[in-house]
């Protein structure tokens, strides 16, 4: 019975996720068609991604962590530098992981 409960719960979560993703794809005609609104949507990727990343780098367990012991902050900044100069996804992820491992090994 508990098997059915978890499947139902996952299916419900999947349905709500799907409906949110479908929302404006299905209802494109309800989106305002003025240039200002279109311009707003241009900023979806940088704004959402920056919002997701900032707490990952600057906070630990819900508290600000700006000290030298926040190794992820430094690894993240190194990854940003690599991304800016090389504009390469693979190099960015690899550099960030390597710097984090190096710092963990040093500290």
């Amino acid at each position, binding site marked *: 019975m508990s098997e059915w409960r*978890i499947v139902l719960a996952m299916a419900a*979560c999947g349905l709500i996720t799907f409906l949110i993703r479908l929302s404006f794809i299905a209802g494109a005609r309800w989106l305002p068609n003025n240039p200002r609104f*279109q311009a707003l949507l241009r900023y979806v990727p940088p*704004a959402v*991604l*920056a919002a997701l*990343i900032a707490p990952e780098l600057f906070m630990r367990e819900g508290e600000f962590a700006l000290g030298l012991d926040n190794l992820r902050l430094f690894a993240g900044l190194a990854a940003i530098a690599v991304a800016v100069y090389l504009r390469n*996804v693979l190099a960015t992820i690899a550099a960030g*992981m390597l710097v984090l491992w190096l710092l963990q090994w040093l500290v």
Partner: protein
Amino acid sequence: MSVVFEPGPDRLSEFLAGVRAEAPLLLGVVPFGLIYGVMGLSAGMPGWAVVLSSSLIFGGSSQIVFAQLWGAATPGAVTVGTVGVVNLRHALYSAAIARYLKDLPWRWKLLLAYLLTDEAFVAAMPRFRDGPTSAARHWFLFGTGITLWAVWQLATLGGVLIGAAIPPGWSLDFSVALTFIALLVLSVSRRSELLAAFIAAGVALAAFGLPHKLWILLAAGAGMLAGVLLRRFDRGSAHE
């Protein structure tokens, strides 16, 4: 008859370009899938359910929230509501991509909505916005989406089977933030986009205490607004 279903040269090249655009991101997605597998098991989900969640829910952060709430025996309605709120940013993706998909038949809209994850959306957006208008361009998004989907299924399965052998000291969960860092930097090409990112980051940090990760939406909204308002600082600004 079968010609209808066969990808023409356009469709195939769009599809393959989408696969290629997604491929480097997999370096960050695979460790994330492995870790989710471990996390699901340790939250008390059966292994088959952890694997099944990757196709039923198909969203890394929502699946982690689901596993945490399941482990804490949260009532079903609360779980579904929380996963929904955590996922609201996908409505922004839906809005941003909608105009490019509006003439597609319903089966395509449903399929592409199912595949519309962070990584698939961000990797495909430049193609839609800056690439040539073509009747086959939705195959690009299908390419990014299905690549991520397939690898996510395998990575989750791998996490359930062998994930426990990965030492936590490897900090593989950091690969998610690194993937988003790579995508963020690549999505910034104008000064106003950079400012939008800074404002969003600042608001996210200031509003982090909000429940249900609502700070994501607040920060994204502030960043988007800032971007539009600061457009005049873009070099050679020639918009309407």
